[in-house]
């Protein structure tokens, strides 16, 4: 079985794009399977709250 890096080189890309939409659009133009995530900082972007949430979940 090929490892994940070899898969990257030899299998069709399937991409999760987190952030700028343009990156997903350019992949779509190249007929790559891609899903767009409109990312938002968790817990209002407060690092202490993010840590707390991660520990709770």
């Amino acid at each position: 079985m090929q490892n994940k890096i070899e898969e990257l080189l030899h299998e069709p890309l399937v991409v999760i794009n987190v952030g700028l939409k343009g990156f997903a659009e350019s992949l779509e133009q190249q007929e790559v399977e891609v899903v767009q995530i409109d990312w938002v900082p968790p817990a209002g972007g407060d690092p202490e709250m993010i840590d707390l949430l991660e520990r709770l979940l």
Partner: protein
Amino acid sequence: MATGFIVRKNQYYDSVFLMGVNNRLSQIQGVQQTAVLMASEKNKELLVNFGLHGEEIESAQPNDLIVTVIAETPQIVETVLANLDQALISQEASAPASHLHSLEEGLVEKPFANLAAFSIPGEYVYREAMKALEANLNVFIFSSNVPLEEELKLKQFASEHKLLVMGPDCGTSILGGVGIGFANVVRNGTIGVIGPSGTGLQEFTSQVHNAGYGISHAFGTGSHDLSDEIGGVTTLMALDALETDEQTEVIAIVAKPPGQKTLHHLVARLKNCTRPVVACFLGTPPEDVNTNSGILWARMIDDAVLSAIQVSGKRESTPGIQLTETEHGLARQTRAKWSSEQCYLRGLLAGGTFCHQSQQILLEAGIEVYSNAPLKPQYKLTHPDHSYKHTLIDMGDDAYTLGKPHPMIDGTMRKQRILAESYDPSVAILLLDFILGYNASMDPVGELLDAIVEAKQRMQQHAGDLAVVASICGTQEDPQELDLQAKLLQEAGVILFHSNAKASLFCCELLKPAKEV
């Protein structure tokens, strides 16, 4: 002048979206400047520098939107702020929102994903990218400002789990013919390439394509990968991948000079590579490295392209890049149009690697050149906005891009600087680069054309002429179409080259002391 601002709680948008809103608001009559940004700590510092502060801004959180306006009258400020909702709605209509907001939701939608790409603020990258690695995904990180210790932890985890981390601060990769990030449309072929810099990879892959050859894979590794702190973790893993890839016949590495420890480690690995290797660390081979190692050393990106093509195409070796007789003649004609005052070069470059390579070529020709990103500390500019003698500016430097779009996406900052330089009667040459490809501006030349024409006219009014020398990086298959962009430049009287190295050599020829001419 009147100023004003508003803070909108819990309205988060990405930087490109905000740039679109900013453009809409700044077009309202009477507006001098607008800033539309998220209330991150860095952006709040930026606002303080603009003279905007107060309890409301200080207490704003990273998820809060801040809009600031400087305009001719308080009424115009009010009009702009009242138009914010309309601008947000219009921008949303041009880029419909996704219903997914987290990596976890993405994994549910695409359980067989093999790559996660991140372009989010640097302070959140470690947490999100680690989640992707733990879900057994390779990672591409465009974001910059990720602390080195976090980059190292991500790369060590990835290495232990046989996953690849391209980045942080990675602009470009091409995997199996698919361009990720800022990539050009190039032919599939047998040349593999690895590099920390986006523009370095774009120049290499475009030149290979334009010479009729093709790329197997191009791995972006991130701007810090070859530092001694990181030790080239991704570069070495990419090398392993290319060495066992059946399609790849020759491997090139194109990078700024690596850290000393990393260089020795890397050279030892390259010497044992079972495929031919071309190494370009922008400059002569490092003095303390054995050059009889079987590695083909290249001083500039163009030399690396030629070497890779010779090996791949099994062609006879050709001489390195040099100017033709016609180009020497063009240099003589160009110099003859200068006034007695004109003597300095000003380079305004969007590509960091281009700024580095141009300095290297000028310094090797004995021309001292100052910069905001100098090759030697004694050539550091006191202030990046104030050129001194021969100056090359990396316009993509953090000082210019914090809270503003990169010059590859939007030409506004370069346009302003071109016009500013044209008021200095000692300026003789303007050196520019134009970078095409996915995600770059759709009309990089068109954005600067008026400023170039105006700058040339101003110099002509003072009995001189401004030599505008430019390089263009891209292919005819790129969304912007190379020929179309090149034609616009040539019609405006720009002296155009298809490589930054060649444009830089031409500048050296223009600056030759009069006695040598």
